[in-house]
């Protein structure tokens, strides 16, 4: 086991998969010579050359379109969209084409595309470098959406995404890139898509999250423990398809659930988690299912104070969790 940051784990996964399978290639803005704006592909251009690590024009629609064409022809492209905020121009290619390709061809064609993109705020990125997009894309049938929280899952889920026959949107919380360190298994270590993981066992209430918020929830669980409240923490890991069984299981165990995400509230992932709970575990509930999310404002503000106000943080999660515990 080696200790890695999230960004190192992502780089390692791409490197290993490109070495393993010659049909895997990377395309995106500045991913080649520059190694990506966050240096996710640092060194890969040198190692695999310009035909496998391709610097694209600043045109997201083109990048995804090229990947779709390549995938139809037997390649396994990894697309890097520089910031999730920039994915909108490719919306048409992703939703109208990639997500529906298998369905449209009655299963004759799969599109093994991975679209990697950094999301989330807390890095003073302001309006164009901070958005969360999981709810928007999670809504689209035909797309898989994953959001790992730690280096081991980042590596294992990226490998799973590359090997998956269908398009996978792979979301990387940019604040976690160098903030979160963890052990990464030396072996192949594929983490299956669609499986949540209980990161901490507890009995009084459940905190459900993913990405950076997961770490805040773990911090909160630790604090709650000192006050005699035993919190279970569930890492969704995959947004879609959601591991409903894990959500139901933790609800049945504790009877009290708080869902946390940074994305805004309306029709967010928390709403879906809550619906799953109401449909399947109503009889186990000991309190209304609660959520703590970003507010429904158009974008992450630049002003630091306002940015802080936008983001759920351990203090606010703790307060909400206590409210739930006391119910």
């Amino acid at each position, binding site marked *: 086991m080696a200790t890695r940051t999230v960004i190192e784990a992502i780089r390692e996964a791409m490197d290993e998969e490109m070495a393993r399978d010659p049909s895997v290639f990377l395309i995106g803005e500045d991913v080649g010579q520059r190694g990506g704006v966050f240096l996710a592909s640092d060194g890969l251009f040198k190692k695999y050359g310009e035909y496998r690590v391709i610097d694209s024009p600043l045109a997201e629609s083109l990048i995804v379109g090229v990947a779709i064409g390549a995938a139809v022809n037997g390649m396994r492209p990894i697309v890097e969209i520089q910031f999730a905020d920039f994915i909108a121009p490719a919306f048409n290619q992703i939703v109208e084409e990639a997500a529906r390709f298998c369905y449209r061809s009655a299963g004759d064609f799969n599109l093994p595309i991975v679209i990697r993109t950094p999301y989330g705020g807390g890095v003073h990125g302001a309006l164009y470098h901070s958005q969360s997009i999981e709810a928007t894309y999670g809504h689209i049938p035909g797309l898989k959406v994953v959001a790992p929280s730690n280096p081991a899952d980042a590596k294992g889920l990226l490998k799973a995404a590359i090997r998956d026959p269908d398009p996978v949107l792979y979301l990387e919380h940019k604040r976690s890139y160098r903030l979160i360190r963890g052990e990464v298994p030396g072996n192949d270590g594929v983490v299956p898509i669609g499986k949540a993981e209980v990161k901490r066992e507890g009995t009084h209430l459940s905190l459900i999250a993913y990405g950076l918020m997961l770490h805040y929830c773990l911090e909160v669980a630790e604090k709650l423990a000192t006050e005699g409240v035993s919190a279970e923490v569930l890492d969704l890991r995959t947004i879609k398809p959601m591991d409903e069984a894990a959500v139901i299981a933790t609800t049945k165990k504790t009877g009290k659930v708080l869902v946390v995400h940074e994305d805004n509230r309306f029709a967010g992932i928390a709403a879906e988690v809550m619906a799953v709970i109401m449909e399947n575990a109503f*009889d186990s509930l000991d309190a209304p299912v609660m959520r703590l999310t970003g507010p429904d404002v158009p974008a992450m503000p630049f002003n630091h104070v306002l940015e802080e106000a936008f983001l759920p943080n351990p203090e606010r999660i703790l307060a909400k969790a206590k409210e739930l515990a*006391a*119910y």
Partner: protein
Amino acid sequence: MASVKMPQLGESITEGTIAKWLKQPGDTVKKYEGLVEVITDKVNAEVPAPLAGVLKEIKVKEGTTVTVGTEIAVIEESVPAGQTPSPAVPTRRREDEGTRPLARASQVPSPASGEGQGGGAAEASTRLSPAVRALIEEHRITDADLARIQGSGIGGRISKKDVEEFVARRGQPVTANGEQAHETPTLTLPQRGKEELVPLSPMRKSIANNMLKSKQTIPHAWTVAEVDMSNVVRFRQQARDGFRQREGVDLTFVPIIVKAVVEGLKAVPVLNASWSENGVVMHKDINVGVAVSVDDGLIVPVVHQADRLSIAGLAKAIDDLARRARGNKLTIPDVQGATFTVNNPGTFGTILSYSIIAPPQAGILAMDAIVKRPVVTDGDAIAIRSMMNLCLSFDHRILDGVSAARFLQGVRHWLEGFSEQVPLY
């Protein structure tokens, strides 16, 4: 402060006139106590105080007419120390709760802060979550028990934890399936090498459950009759070879006893019955279960409508059932619907057997070993006779000893009177 309004005292009445104030400012009023007399064009009525308190102010003088809904007086609610004030205007609180559903949770507060609390302590403590309701059901917690549980949640709400703790205190562990501890005693694991744990076969479990249920729910009574089987033994021996040739099966004692039992049941039908809380169910068919021992236990196939069969018919039916029981070829109807059971432990030399009734039957008869014994006969002579004990266990809820004895007597007379005159076929 709560305002008192001009009430609507009838359909289509839009206004009322204050006739007389029955209370003056400063007066204490009880809830529902007469406060004011109102005259309308249809009725004259006394308007009661909507709540207890002190009349602070009269807003409308006597003789004045106002529209329905106009404030006519103000009452200051009386708040006994430590008690939640009774809400003056319930609708206001409701609106508040509707727009801020979680506000009450974050405010925490003493129950007395009223507004925004969604009903205060009393309501919160009686509002039960689905999880709490499920636990109440599972552990059969009565309303009285519930009232004793101190809610630790916001506003005194009873939480899942509170119920679990209550149940733990009550001495019944919370288990997933709700079974109580005393029903499933824990097994002490055998010491390595000295004991062996044999897993329960489905048949073993089923027998265990039935026997336990029978002994726990049926008040068993037990009685024994001694039968002189000499005639049966003699004539059976005479008929045996011919019977085998003709019918292809051995003429054992069992079909003969079953025949005697059928005759006994015809004479005492109350033994061919089942207990129910609504009354004794009398069975019209006589279906006799015959216990057959098999490898891993015991099974009781049924001779349906045994009263319509001759001894030969019974012999063939029993032989067929026993054969199929040992070959594992019985069908569901073969083992259902018995109204009485005959057990034959005598094969193994027993002389007194106390059988357990198979619910919902009323009785079970055990035929014990036929043994030659010296017996004092009618003429005070001592003779060697083939004697057998018939042991009857019966459900004392359904019948009494007299009926049981009459049944045994009937069976005994039938057997002792056995002769070549009794038709076998």
